[in-house]
């Protein structure tokens, strides 16, 4: 154990005070993502032509919205010590369902119903919520590892999405269904504001509410949480349900943006979601991280992708770089744990 540098029988002597620099260092490490983001934006702005323009910056944010929504969902799951890989297919399924019900076309594969979003949107939210609830129940009641459960969902829900139109694409939703995407303020689509509000709400929920406190406690030490009367199963199921509804909202916004859905809508997103969350300091070990920094991770990924696209870097390099970024983030996460642990 540690050295005790005390002077008498007083318990106060037990304290090993750490130098102020230690706390400053810890704070900087904890929020390093924003420093990196600012530096990268400065570098890109001075080296990449057309990066630092209002339109491009808005574009980065607009394109980050969909990843951003799933990052909220993934972050909640990770903080709670769980994982949800089915988010992507959930978004794909709900996008397809929403677009299919909203289109008045029957060709090539629409339902021809042209239903109002007042009906369609709640419906796909319920579908997303049910998918989440199933994940949560499997994890808590059947005690299956969340990675496995949601991996199965990742595969299966994509199948359901394709099943709706037997693989065909759907085009042409009702204008009302697309309203959050088509209406802009200073050329910023409304959906951006919606996601910002969601970030603020979920940040407060996680950090300032009892429910949020329990999410952290469960991810940290599930036995302790149980010991002190936290209804662990109920909290985990709720987390998965909220994640499912967020995935459905992502599905809605995606199908609104492309005015339809294909068998591949949202495909491949889960890797970026995962990357953004981890880069944003959401620990894979659970119980750690916050949404503000996760948002930093989302924007960082968006900025890098945008810069690489502008200079037309071949797509395989982009993939290699993203992979490297994830590996880097995970290594930083684990080094942080190792060196900040002062015994």
């Amino acid at each position, binding site marked *: *154990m*540690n050295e*005790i540098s*005390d002077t008498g*029988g*007083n*318990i*106060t*002597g*037990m*304290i*090993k*005070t*750490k130098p102020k620099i230690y706390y400053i260092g810890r704070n900087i490490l904890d929020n390093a993502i924003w420093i990196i983001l600012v530096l990268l934006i400065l570098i890109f702005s001075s080296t990449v032509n057309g990066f630092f323009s209002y339109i491009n910056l808005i574009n980065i944010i607009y394109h980050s919205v969909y990843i951003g929504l799933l990052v909220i969902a993934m972050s909640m799951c990770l903080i709670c010590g769980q994982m949800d890989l089915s988010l992507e297919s959930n978004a794909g399924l709900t996008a397809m369902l929403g677009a299919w019900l909203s289109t008045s076309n029957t060709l090539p594969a629409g339902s021809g119903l042209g239903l109002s979003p007042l009906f369609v949107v709640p419906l796909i939210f319920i579908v997303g919520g049910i998918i989440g609830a199933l994940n949560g129940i499997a994890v808590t009641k059947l005690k299956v590892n969340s990675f496995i459960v949601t991996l199965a969902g990742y595969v299966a829900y994509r199948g359901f999405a394709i099943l709706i139109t037997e693989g065909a694409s759907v085009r042409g939703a009702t204008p009302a269904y697309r309203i959050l995407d088509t209406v802009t303020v200073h050329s910023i689509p409304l959906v951006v504001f919606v996601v910002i509000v969601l970030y603020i709400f979920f940040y*407060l*929920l996680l950090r*300032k*509410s*009892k*429910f949020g*406190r329990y999410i*952290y*406690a469960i991810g*940290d*030490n599930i*036995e*302790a*949480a149980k*010991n*002190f*009367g*936290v209804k662990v199963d109920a909290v985990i199921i709720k987390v998965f349900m909220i994640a499912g509804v967020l995935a459905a909202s992502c599905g809605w916004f995606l199908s609104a943006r492309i005015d339809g859905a294909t068998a591949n809508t949202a495909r491949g997103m889960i890797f970026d979601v995962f990357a953004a969350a981890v880069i944003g300091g959401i620990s894979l070990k659970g*119980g*750690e991280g916050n949404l503000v920094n996760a948002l930093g991770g989302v924007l960082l990924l968006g900025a890098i992708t945008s810069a690489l696209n502008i200079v037309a870097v071949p797509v395989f390099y982009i993939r290699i770089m993203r992979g490297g970024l994830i590996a880097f983030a995970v290594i930083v996460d684990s080094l942080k744990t190792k060196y*900040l*642990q*002062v*015994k």
Partner: protein
Amino acid sequence: MNSKKSYTKILEIKNISKSFGAVVALNNVSFDLYENEIVGLVGDNGAGKTTLIKIISGVFPADSGEIRMNGKKVYFKSTLDARKAGIETVYQDLSLCDKLDVVSNLFLGRERCRKILGIDFLIEKEMEVYAANSLSKTGIDIPSLKEKVRFLSGGQRQCTAFVRATMWGSKIILLDEPYAALGVRETAKVLKVTENLIRTNKNLSMIFISHNLQHVFSIVDRIVVLRHGEVIGIKVKKEINPDEIVGMITGAIF
């Protein structure tokens, strides 16, 4: 300061027996715990100390026998039942959430909240003040209540878990092998804090389990010696010395 206290029995353990298959873990164990008393529960490995503590704290029921609190028979179906009745257990692993701060740990499962739009939001300031008061009574100094528990020393963590156990109107604290991971001087201090907290709070009593007789002798009033699941003797600390206790534990003295 102990034998005079024989007025109120807070906890009565009566003829408790427990077997696991063919193994008799506890056989007809009885002893009492008086108000504001610290009883040391000692015995060799496998003597049944932990089994007894688990029965009292509601982890599992006894095969036969009864437990009375304040004269009333109690039956615990879970540790939460026992906790509601006022029995708090501090386990070796302390049950702390390392990545949460001190206040969050003290209030875990008992958060103060106010409802806004149907959501329970934490009243952090109030909890912080209450926590600061509870800790200041003990003389424990913690760098900041907002410090995450994992950045605290072993002794500070131990004290945090112990203070949490005493904070909630609890009546009986069960302390199971608490200081295995602490250094010598740190242990001495934590023992002092522990004893002070019990002695200054007349509503608290404690059962203290330890292998370390030096620790036991430094804070208890009476000592219950278990051997092979039976109570070999119940001694007032002043009337016995550690060597005799060792004799009783090992079976050299009956």
